[in-house]
């Protein structure tokens, strides 16, 4: 019983880290008043960019440097995801296209790009075995000796560095949004862009920055999934898309507070893996159990809308375009 509980926790943390990154990025974006439904696509872009760049690097030298591998993976993922965010920002802010439709298009585009290259990288490179980046993946999965220090050590320290990076990002984001001038400016834009504009805040610039940086952070979820979760390979099974949508759902669950994303993400992980640890389930009743995270999100949605309390609401101008001349 105790071992299976530990297994469940380990699985939940790994799962939660993927969606935590996606969720934090989306919180920053939504605080600036843009609902980006392109999170799954952005996570796809981040995942494939890191995989492709490291694949090329590992193929080009005999002794790949682990630290360089990690830097290349993170940097390329951040750039690719931020570029995805930039396309979304350009279309929705400058060209005033509808945010939901643009976001969905970004998801289609991102999953197309990622699955296309993920599935044919080997053919393009003239090799035929399954794509793999063992060196980088081992660097991402490396753990400190603390992980061997009994049960506590195992539960707390047996993860790759990105698990801790996610938690740190959540804390920094919380501090940035609530305790800095720039964070305040950003929240003002999300609540009332016209007032922010009148106060001399550059709405366009801040929105662009928030969306691109938010997208970059979301993209790290893809990196963690590819490098750590599935150990540096690629699977065309649409999992990143599912995880991306759960990340969007988690934003609601956290009521737009990144600090809540830490426990919220792990809770989603527990709900997701729970079916493996409930005895006596047949294969078909397992499928019913896998509904849990989605059903819980629906319940949270309903409860927050019923309670209608002021500090648990989305940014007031979320999803609305801002055009100075139209007031």
């Amino acid at each position, binding site marked *: 019983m105790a071992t299976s509980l530990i297994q469940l926790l380990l699985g939940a943390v790994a799962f939660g880290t993927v969606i935590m990154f996606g969720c934090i990025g989306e919180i920053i974006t939504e605080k600036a008043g843009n609902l980006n439904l392109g999170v799954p696509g952005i996570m796809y872009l981040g995942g494939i960019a890191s995989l492709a760049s490291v694949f090329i690097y590992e193929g080009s030298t005999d002794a790949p440097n682990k630290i360089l591998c990690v830097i290349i993976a993170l940097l390329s993922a951040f750039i690719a995801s931020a570029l995805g965010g930039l396309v979304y920002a350009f279309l929705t802010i400058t060209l005033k296209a509808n945010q939901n439709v643009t976001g969905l298009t970004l998801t*289609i585009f991102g999953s197309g790009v990622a699955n296309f290259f993920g599935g044919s990288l080997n053919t393009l490179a003239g090799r035929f075995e399954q794509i793999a980046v063992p060196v980088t993946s081992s660097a991402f999965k490396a753990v400190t000796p603390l992980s061997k220090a009994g049960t506590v050590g195992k539960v707390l320290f047996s993860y790759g560095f990105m698990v801790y990076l996610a938690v740190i990002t959540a804390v920094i984001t919380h501090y940035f949004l609530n305790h800095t001038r720039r964070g305040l400016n950003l929240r003002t834009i999300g609540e009332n862009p016209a007032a922010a504009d009148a106060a001399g805040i550059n709405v366009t610039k801040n929105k662009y920055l928030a969306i691109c940086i938010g997208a970059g952070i979301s993209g790290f979820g893809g990196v963690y999934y590819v490098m750590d979760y599935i150990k540096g390979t690629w699977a065309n099974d649409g999992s990143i898309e599912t995880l991306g949508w759960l990340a969007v759902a988690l934003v609601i669950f956290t009521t737009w507070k990144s600090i809540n994303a830490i426990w919220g993400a792990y809770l989603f992980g527990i709900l997701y893996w729970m079916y493996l640890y409930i005895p006596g389930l047949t294969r078909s009743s397992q499928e019913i159990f*896998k509904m849990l995270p989605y059903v819980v999100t629906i319940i949270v949605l*309903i409860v927050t809308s019923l309670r209608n309390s002021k500090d648990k609401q989305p940014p007031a101008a979320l999803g609305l375009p801002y055009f100075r001349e139209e007031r």
Partner: protein
Amino acid sequence: MSDNSAVKDPFIRVVKRGDMKSGPKICIRIGSVVVSLIVCGILINVITGLNPVAVYVTMFKGAFGSTRRSFATIREMMMLACVAIGLAPAFKMKFWNIGAEGQILIGGIVSAGCMINLNMLPTFPLLIIMFATSAAAGALWALLPAVFKAKWNTNETLFTLMMNYVAIQLTSFFVSKWENPKGSNTVGIINSNTQAGWFPEIFGQKYTLNIILVVTLAILMWVYLKYTKHGYEIAVVGDSENTARYAGISVSKVIIRTMLLSGAVCGIAGFLAVSGASHTISTSTAGGRGFTAIIVAWLAKFNSFYMLLIALLLAFLGSGATEIASKCKLNDYASDMIIGIILFFILASEFFINYRLVFRKHAKEEA
């Protein structure tokens, strides 16, 4: 913050246009599609080394090279158009129903269930029962988020999105219940001997009934949105809920009614997918069409006939990209990439229809 003190004209200013004539509108839209096709051609050339013109010839052959292929493309177009037709009233009302994927699956599950359990019935009554039950199932699936939106303003975007995943798990559940042969974890082709519940061949073609059904739905939806009181109420609620309330329209009633309709048509799309195309059910029965169709409906400005045209374009790109992928031994996700790029361009082109740019010099001349 620094340069706000001095008042100066910006170099470029964006000005909202009045209504544009339909001539230039169509030119801009066609232009954006052409430009995006050129960009995609260059991209494919860079990746595969194929000559861009040859790429489109290959794509055309893949989509319309033989009667069988043409009908496969048309079947895909009808499927996509059917979902878009279902989504149109919801989106016109600004109800963000991104749960079409789930509504299709629920319709599909019910259709497959009828095919498996009622296969003793003759074709015609069976088809009618399947049509009615799948529409009802889709409508019920859409009703839940609609009621919460109408009564408590629960966010419908995420509600409908989550309903997709509940529907996917429900599909997995039924797939493992109905699996055939045992242990395969697929349902297999249902009634492959008797063909009970399959769309019959009409005029020697398997997909004639798909075309008839979807074109009928398209015309009905066009009339419904354009010429009925319900359609007018949907337009008013979509433009401004406050105006609707002021005019005495019951907003929650309109939301619930419209979502029932929207879900029903998406459920029918599931019936089309199971009974009129694949004759099986799996979690990929909806295959992302629920999302793509949103963009189809939005870009067509909810006009049924434009929806058919855009669906044709996307179906062509889909089967064309599959052809290129199989020729170059690449995988067929290339079609999603190309569709994404084209949609980006069409979305961007809308800007030039709604707004115009004013440069500084012009502004001075005007003044």
